[in-house]
């Protein structure tokens, strides 16, 4: 008979890991929404943030101070990237910008390992991961904490976008850069702010993923988990990043557990992409992405 309890557990596990994917996806959306750049270096930034934090903590720097220092470093990194790499490329086609971020991810990965070394570091955020037993269903404490953090961050961004002046500026730039320019928004400042926000997201995602995987080179591969989320939710929508993350997380886990055995297991890697691709053929700009009106 169909084991419902197990099904719920897989579903909840999937949703919670989906939230972790959304964390990374938000970093992408922020930058794509306001400057049309698919920042493939988000993964490397994530690695750099986690490595900086954990190396500081291991050198005896207290937790909050290390967090602040890492945030400062990432903000600086964000602004430098925007200033050095993206501003000269501002009117290049999106594909050139995408490739520039590919090159950038190599630079950041190299710098991170040169600066902090290539060892593996454990990262303990003080959340022991003994699961709660809710009516026989095991729910992991850590994932709940991560979901809470992600939820808080999304709420923060939603409020930021809706009610603050800079948030308004972000949305204006996202809609039409030239109009925003015409209205007098100083684009370089907005983009610098956007990259700063992406830096902050990288720190949060870096710490949570770092605690989950341990801080090491493969942390930057997490990006590959976020891409299907972006495809499903649309590259330019925060809501899409969250809903897309939940969907992809759940579908990925259910597919692996229930469909996997027919294929011999290990289908997780491509299942998410195939689902996102199938969805995309129906709706070419994703769940919430704006439908591009082809202007002849």
């Amino acid at each position, binding site marked *: 008979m169909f084991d419902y309890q197990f099904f719920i557990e897989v579903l909840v596990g999937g949703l919670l890991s989906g939230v972790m994917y959304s964390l990374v996806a938000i970093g992408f959306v922020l930058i794509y929404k306001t400057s049309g750049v698919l920042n493939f270096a988000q993964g490397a930034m994530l690695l750099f943030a986690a490595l900086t934090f954990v190396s500081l903590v291991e050198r005896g720097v207290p937790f909050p101070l290390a967090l602040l220092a890492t945030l400062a470093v990432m903000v600086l990194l964000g602004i430098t990237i925007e200033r050095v790499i993206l501003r000269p490329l501002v009117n290049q086609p999106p594909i050139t910008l995408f*490739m*520039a971020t590919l090159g950038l991810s*190599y630079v*950041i990965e190299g710098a991170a390992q040169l600066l902090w070394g290539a060892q593996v570091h454990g990262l303990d955020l003080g959340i022991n991961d003994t699961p709660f037993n809710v009516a026989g269903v095991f729910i992991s404490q850590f994932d709940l904490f991560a979901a809470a953090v992600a939820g808080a961050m999304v709420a923060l961004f939603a409020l930021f976008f809706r009610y603050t002046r800079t948030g308004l500026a972000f949305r204006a730039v996202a809609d039409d850069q030239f109009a925003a320019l015409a209205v007098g928004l100083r684009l370089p400042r907005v983009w610098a702010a956007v990259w700063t926000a992406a830096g902050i997201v990288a720190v949060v995602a870096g710490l949570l993923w770092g605690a989950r995987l341990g801080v090491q080179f493969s942390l930057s591969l997490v990006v590959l988990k976020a891409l299907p989320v972006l495809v499903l939710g649309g590259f330019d929508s925060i809501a899409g990043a969250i809903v897309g993350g939940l969907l992809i997380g759940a579908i990925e886990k259910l597919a692996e557990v229930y469909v996997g055995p027919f294929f*011999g297991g290990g289908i997780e890697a*491509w299942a998410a992409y195939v689902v996102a691709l199938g969805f995309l053929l129906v709706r070419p700009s994703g769940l919430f992405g704006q439908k591009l009106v082809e202007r002849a």
Partner: protein
Amino acid sequence: MSTPSLSINANWLTRSRVGVAVLLVIAYGVIPFTGSEYLLDAILTPFLALALAAVGLNVLTGYAGQVSLGSAAFLAVGAYAAYNFNLRIPELPFLVSLVLAGIVAAAVGLVFGLPSLRLRGFYLAVSTLAAQFFVQWALTKFGWFSNDNPSGVIDAPTLTIGGVQISGAARRYVFSVTIVLIATFLTVRLLAAQSGRNFIAVRDHEIAAKVIGVPLLRTKLLAFGVSSFLIGVAGVLWAFAYLRTVEPAGFNLDRSFQILFIIIIGGLASIRGSFLGAAFIVVFPLLLSRVGAALLGNVFDSGVLEMSQRIVIGGLIVGLLIAEPRGLIALVDRLSARILPKLRRPAPQPISPQNYHSQKGVI
């Protein structure tokens, strides 16, 4: 002011008979006899395989404007298809297996090219990732592809073509260079013909192309098919002439990025650029680590060298995209225009320069 580049049909094949002749003399006359085993087996053969893969990806991304992040999957399909054709149908001559492997890769390319009609830009690029992960998973999962070798690794048998055993660095090199030159020649002919123009039309203005009657789906699928065919054949060279044992992990995402970097650094929509980019990506890390080791000695362990190499390559890609979006080939052309003015045809009288977008039609 970027010098007015010439049109597609004044390609370098017809324009400089001498250049091609000299190239052939060196490729067949000089290198096989003077080159050391290290040069042939560790530098030239991989360079040729990667250059052919880059030419293939350039047809798809440089000329037809369809971005693909899954080219390594087609390398793998080519390698494993050729291995199985050679293994399961022994009477097939190897060259036939090679072409059949290319055709299988082209077929897989067509399947994963279908979404290109509805998807564009990043959405298409991400969907090609589906090809990358699916092919890699299928090759490790189904033992049949690797002749049920428990670990999924295939040992390429020694090649025999027309009774001649291709063993030894020089013969492997000559085999590779012949295949690559023939494939590139045919590709240049395709690009100079109407299909090549259709590729560029679809890339530069898809709507105008549709209005004037360019068959969009057929053109895009042709681009995916030809590109995957060339990359598939490059996969066969990689497996049979270069590494000689291959595992699916060797065709991972880093490999796809490597091929993409080759055409970005070399020059999008440029066959010479693909070769120049491949030469750079294969030789540069070796030179850097040798220079690094020689200069810095053992002050730094090889890990530090490796990481600084990663920074230099990444930095170079970004620098190139800013300084010369048309890649190294544009720099070389500009240099040669200054150094060899008498040899180049006098350019037509210059009409006031126009800020033109980073497209370039020269082969």
